[in-house]
């Protein structure tokens, strides 16, 4: 079921990436990053309700959820946030300067203005 969700998210992400609107493009990127996080998370195996909390008494560690992919995904989420915010700001500036939301307009270089 979750695998299908990954597929749907990727489908949506790719579709949005291929739109000409830059705003949709950014949404597409966020979908893609969510989908990838989920993929990494799922691939480590799912363990419900047993977070990786340990103390000195814990002995049976193998039954807990694997902390490693969680750490990875956590990093990825944060980086994804940074990227998304930065692209948004870039997009804002771009619109302010060029006055268009159309990616195909990006084809022109400065010299052709």
């Amino acid at each position, binding site marked *: 079921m979750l695998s299908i969700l990954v*597929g749907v998210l*990727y489908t949506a992400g790719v579709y949005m990436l291929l739109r000409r609107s830059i705003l949709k493009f950014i*949404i597409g990127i966020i979908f893609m990053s969510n989908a990838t996080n989920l*993929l990494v998370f799922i691939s480590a195996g799912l363990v419900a309700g047993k977070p*990786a909390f340990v103390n000195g008494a814990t002995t049976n560690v193998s039954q807990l959820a694997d902390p490693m992919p969680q750490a990875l995904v*956590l*990093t990825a989420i944060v980086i994804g946030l940074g990227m998304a915010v930065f692209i948004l700001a870039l997009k*804002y500036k771009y619109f302010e300067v060029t006055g268009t939301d159309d990616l195909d307009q990006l084809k022109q270089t400065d010299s052709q203005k």
Partner: protein
Amino acid sequence: MLPMLNLVILYFLFALSIFILPKAIKSQKGILIAFLQMAAFVWFVFKVPLVSANNSELLFLKWIPELGLNFEFLLDGLSLAFALLVTGVGVLVFLYAHSYMKSYDNTAKFFFFLLLFSGAMLGLVLSANLIQLFIFWELTTVLSFFLISFFNEKELARKAAFQSLVITFLGGLSLLAGIIVIGSAVDSYSINDWVAGADKIKSSSSYVPGLILILIGVFTKSAQFPFHFWLPGAMQAPAPVSAYLHSATMVKAGVFLLARLSPALGGTDEWTFIVPLFGVITMLVGSYFAITQTDLKAILAYTTINALGVLVLLLGIDTNLSIKAAVLFLFIHAFYKASLFMIAGFIEKKTGTREINELGGLIKSFPITSAIALLALLSMAGLPPMLGFLGKELIYEAKVQSPGFGSMIFIFGFISNVLMFAVSMKVLFKVFLGKAKKTYTVSRFKNTFFVIGPAILVLISLVIGIAPNLFGKWIIEPATNVIYASPVNVELALWHGFNQVLLLSIATVVLGSMLSYILIKYNRVEVLWQKFNTTVFPVNLPELFTKTIESFVAFSVSKTKILQHGYHRYYILSIIVFTAVLLWVQLFVTKGWQFEIPFTFKPFYISGLVFIIMLATLFSVITRSRIAAILSMGVTGYGMALIFLYYSAVDLAITQILSETLIVVMFMLILQRLPTFTKLSSKATKIRDLIVSIIFGTAMTLVTLKAINVNLSSPISEFFMQNSFQKAFGENVVNVILVDFRALDTLGEATVLVIAAVGVSVLLFSKKSKS
């Protein structure tokens, strides 16, 4: 023995210092450099006695001995002869350039390149290691490019420079390959080792390919057919450059190398067939095209090609007589051609044209210059008492006695000499004698530096022509010995007695006079001849060259245009389609997978959550409202957080909620300033994109399914689990990993965030720039 190296280094240092000369002496830099050249020249003159006793000096410095790369400077008869030419002609050329370049800007640049060139050329002729020689060789090529394109505002000059660069560079590459091929046969790049191992080289299987590669390098540099066409183009250079590079020194580098390698590679059937063949063709081509040119410098360029052909031919014949003739002719040609180029530059300066049809009777305006030109032309025509006569006699003698296909060489040589004679006479009568079309008045003092160079060269030529023996003993003989690798007795005399060769000379003069008389008397003959040439030789080599280059460039431009079309979406599309195809291929290859996890809706609340996320995603894609799109994207994000929460990833859930909130807020902030969605894509593209997306998404689903089944039994997790509390005293293993075990990674991550934040603030709060 260090002076040789120091001398070359001195040239380079001096060249650099040109730019920092004090203002007061800056305008005199031509003369200053001439002094340097003079000093070098004198130094080499003092070496003459040593070398003429058949001694040589070798300077050996280790560089990378493991690879056979060493600095080796060798001073023997051959390199001394060339070094004398480089420095001696150098003195005169710089004096000349001092006057010639006065009226141009950027003279510092010019003298810088020209002096660097002298140094490189000197290094080249003194090199005894072939890799080192190759470096100097390429250096002269590059510098030649800069010098030809000195008038870089002229398109013709740029084109010519580019053409000569490409051709000589290709030749240089071929030369390097050849050196390596042959060098591997004797396992050394030192010329001495090559000469010592000559038999080994000649019998090895790499001899023929190596020889051909080296010869290509030689032929491009020395403008041999079919590479000769870059030389007339190179006449776009300022006159001192033409006189120095393209007649006296650089184009002789190929000849030098040929002479240098002659004891190592020469004497075989291949050598005595290939080398003279190209020499003869070049000789004929040069003299044949020289006669129909009307541009003074073009005439000189073609006669230079002729002379280079003669030199190559003589070295190829490879008898002691022919080599003697080659060395002598090398000097003869340098003497008269350098002076003629300088005079041509002078004439162009004073009259504003190089077209010989527009010139005439210059002897009235410039008596001294014309007298010098007369002597130089006599030398070129091969008439007594000039040195040229001596050379021509010797060449005839060498040709008559040449083995192999001697009779052919002899006939072609005769034709070429007749043509050369006619060209000389044509220039003499059309430009200097005859009716003056205009008179030019020039003050005499200013011309001293213009005239001094050619005058000295011509005088040397005259003096040696009359009394050649000392010159022959001291300079020609040692050089010949080196090339021929055995002692040769050189005795030169102006008068050889009444023999077959003299008869030939007389015949040459008679025929040549007739030809030049016809050309001068009837202008129509020349025009008809030019027309004939253009119809008989329809292929214009320079044009062919340009077209080849252009079509090559056009080809890559058209290919680039297809790939770099500038539409961002199609770049992404191609990347995704490619990835999807790869994924599907991989899935197909491993289709025997067993999916162990059965499809299940349990637990039902997760299934419900997933369903909600899907709906939100779809809605976000299809909605026309921006706010709706962003909000439903937010729903997706929060849904993800819940999934994380359920599957034991508390920290992930918290982070996801925070970042999702931030993103949505950020979107909303910016949204008010952005336009609403407009309909940009047509239905067809939407469907196409949809299909691509679904294909990709399906592939990803399958990959995910597979990923669950792959058992990532990562022992590192166990390590973290066990040590988290004991060593790091943290209960939350994920947190401990981030801030303790992998703290540096987290630091990097924080840095990324800071950079992003700085970028955002710069982008958002900077003032609106003018658009």
